[in-house]
């Protein structure tokens, strides 16, 4: 197998301190024609940096390639001149990124952004470039490309924007596409469509792809070979099936072990035996509507959108309930409405017998004392100016704990979430994402809550850290009889942690029942599509991408 792109002993150093710090340490990897190479590793492992080094786009002047070579068809890109690299980028190697919104020009027509590269690299005239761009848009799945050429990025959904980015990257028919976490910001169903598109394009254009991802499931579904990076080194590489079936390196084994795959059907968790007569939380025909448009001087024409439409369910003490659905399905709004953080439009939220709509004062006071929330972005959820001890201590103080008892309780909380007591004096900025999330959980536990709502609390974390946090929740649940509402878009995690699942779609609960049952026999096509779109780590369980145009039928 001849390599199209051959990286040999590449070294990238950071020249900031007195000694240069090695960020990429003698990495060698090959990419064959028509091959999809999966580059996996945690954030900070150097996988994105490696690809940027290949493109000659190191993100800082303090970074430099200090050794090795990147051979592309007989030329060494490390030693290529700036002018030569201009013709390599886009023409030989295209690149797409995690967040299509920030990498597309918001004030430029989608089509023009694609045509721009064609005009620059191939010297095509305006009309030819437009034709080529329209053709490209059709190829990446735009249903009406000649009309959509003139649309702006904000007129498209995240999935379509990512398609547009792919079109722009492929507009000059590069031989290699580097895709840096292309689906991380997308819903599972959209992710499945984008991955399928990449596979199609590989077939039709003979494209080689380097796919950077942290999700081994995606690799298992799409890639031919896997390269695992950790701390700037390549710890393992090989054909997909070999690496997944018989990982040689401990780290690869741990990555595979942390992957939240859907377990086979069966294995239902025993339901809590004792049931109280009264539910801890009861949501009855809840509606939440937001005003859109309308301002100080424009009274007429006020529009409303419904984020939550007629949701009803009950939560018993000690329950763990997962709420799943795509972004925009109203999961977070529901959570905020339950906690009294977003006003209810109609319906009832009853917490421990007190109705939030009828006795707002009493209910809010009770909710604030007896519930807590864990957030998606762990760093942003902590006040950057407070140390861990100050963050926790403040909650305790506000809840009336005598100041003499506070330090002891802080130590206790840190122990509960398995953080060393030495973390008490640190500020969020010096903590990792996982550590911040542990502080967030400790803060939630500080009030001795009866109900914790975790809103996508592992979505921003690496898989290995995700597993640790989910394990922590499972442990706390068993130890403290916590009632937990766990909101997530990752079905596998919900499946493993929660006894019961609510599936939300467009503000409504379309399915509600025991996890095992819903995952084994989903009643609604929407739920089935969600489950089918989760990339499984077993390469033989094929990904089922729902067709983009058949919107799942809502109830």
């Amino acid at each position: 197998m001849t390599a199209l792109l051959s990286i040999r002993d590449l070294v990238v150093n950071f020249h900031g301190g007195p000694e240069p710090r090695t960020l990429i340490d003698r990495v060698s990897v090959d990419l064959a024609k028509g091959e999809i190479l999966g580059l996996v590793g945690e954030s900070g492992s150097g996988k994105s940096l490696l690809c940027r080094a290949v493109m000659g786009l190191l993100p800082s002047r303090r970074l430099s390639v200090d050794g090795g070579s990147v051979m592309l068809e007989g030329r060494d890109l490390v030693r290529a001149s700036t002018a030569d690299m201009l013709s390599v980028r886009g023409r030989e190697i295209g690149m797409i990124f995690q967040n299509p919104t920030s990498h597309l020009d918001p004030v430029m027509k989608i089509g023009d952004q694609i045509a721009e590269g064609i005009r620059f690299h191939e010297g095509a005239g305006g009309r030819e470039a437009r034709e080529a761009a329209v053709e490209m848009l059709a190829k990446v799945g735009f249903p009406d490309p000649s009309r959509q050429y003139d649309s702006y990025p904000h007129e498209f959904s995240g999935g379509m924007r990512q398609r547009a980015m792919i079109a722009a990257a492929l507009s000059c028919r590069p031989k290699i596409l580097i895709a840096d976490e292309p689906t991380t910001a997308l819903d599972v169903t959209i992710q499945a469509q984008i991955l399928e598109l990449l596979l199609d394009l590989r077939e039709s254009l003979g494209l080689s792809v380097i796919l950077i991802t942290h999700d081994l499931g995606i690799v298992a579904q799409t890639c031919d070979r896997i390269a695992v990076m950790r701390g700037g080194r390549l710890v393992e590489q090989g054909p997909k099936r070999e690496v997944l079936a018989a990982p040689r390196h401990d780290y690869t084994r741990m990555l595979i072990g942390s992957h939240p795959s859907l377990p086979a059907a069966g294995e239902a968790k025993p339901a809590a035996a004792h049931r109280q007569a009264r539910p801890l939380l009861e949501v009855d025909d809840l509606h939440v509507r937001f005003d859109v448009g309308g301002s100080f001087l424009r009274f007429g024409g006020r529009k409303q959108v419904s984020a939550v439409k007629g949701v009803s369910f009950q939560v018993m003490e000690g329950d763990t309930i997962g709420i799943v659905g795509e972004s925009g399905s109203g999961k977070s709004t529901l959570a905020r409405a339950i906690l009294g953080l977003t006003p209810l439009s109609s319906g009832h939220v009853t917490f421990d017998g007190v109705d939030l709509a009828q006795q707002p004062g009493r209910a809010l006071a009770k909710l604030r004392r007896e519930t807590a929330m864990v957030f998606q972005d762990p760093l942003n959820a902590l006040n950057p100016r407070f140390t861990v001890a100050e963050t926790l201590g403040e909650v305790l103080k506000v809840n009336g704990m005598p100041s003499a008892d506070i330090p002891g309780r802080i130590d206790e909380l840190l122990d509960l979430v398995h953080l060393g007591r030495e973390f008490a004096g640190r500020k969020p900025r010096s903590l990792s994402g996982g550590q911040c999330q542990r502080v967030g959980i400790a803060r939630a536990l500080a009030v001795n809550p009866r109900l914790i709502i975790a809103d996508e609390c592992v979505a921003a974390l690496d898989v290995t850290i995700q597993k640790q946090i989910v394990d922590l929740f499972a442990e706390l649940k068993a130890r403290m009889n916590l009632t937990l509402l766990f909101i997530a878009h990752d079905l596998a995690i919900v499946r493993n942690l929660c006894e019961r699942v609510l599936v939300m779609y467009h503000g409504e609960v379309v399915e509600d029942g025991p996890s095992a049952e819903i995952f084994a026999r989903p009643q609604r096509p929407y739920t089935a599509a969600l489950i089918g779109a989760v990339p499984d780590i077993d390469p033989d369980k094929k990904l089922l991408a729902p067709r983009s145009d058949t919107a799942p039928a809502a109830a």
Partner: protein
Amino acid sequence: MSAPAVRLPVSRGLSRWLGEHLSLLAGAGILAFFILLALAAPLVAPYDPVAQMADVRLQPPSLAHPFGTDNFGRDVLSRVIWGTRIDLQIAFIGVAFPFVIGTLLGTVAGFFGGIVDTVFMRVIDIILAFPFLVLMLSIIAILGPGLASFYIAMALVGWVSYARLVRAQILVLKNSDYAVAAVSLGFSRARIMFRHLLPNAIAGSLVFVMSDAVLVLLNGAAISYLGLGVQPPTAEWGIMVAEGQPFVTTAWWITLFPGLSIVFLAFAFSLLGDALGDLLGVHE
């Protein structure tokens, strides 16, 4: 032998720190010099700043009078040194009141939003609708000339910039997860506003304080120049520039030295503002 080997990285770290914070050091240095000068004015000023010496009128700089003398025979160096007291006071007080008032009102407007916010913002629009200097002059004209009137006028007009800056920050921060977390944990509004949001919102204003101090200083000088601020014969840089103006072609030293002092003090504030911005991460 081992002691220098241990100390070396520390001193190198220190020198690098100094290198990276050159503007902080220079700004703080110049400001400290002026503050010391103001405190030590009676000790270092060679003459009485208001004493008129008829025999040495309009003398060019010499050993006896390094900055020369003005048309009343007063020593310019002594007047510049004594003027430091007044001009530093103008910069500090002229900024302090708008900063405190604007920050508080901006925090409240941003946090509560709705009608409170609308009212504050419209008031700000009204104040901004007038040219700054015209508004200042009218307020001082109503209150009567003098430094106290100047400070009151500054407080009435200057707070709007701070209010807008802080309000914009608060609007962003009040939707951040840690603010929502604070609400969900039952913290009082005052605690959320002043313990959680304000400290995180204030960095931009602190930087603006420094550039604002420059503007206030120049304003104070301009108001005094127009005869509405500090009254003669008090030594103040703005008045000194005004008094020297008729003689600028024949006795340049009367205007040059107080003018340079204004420039240097303004420069110090600018440097400090820049350095503060870097330290607080405002430029990121």
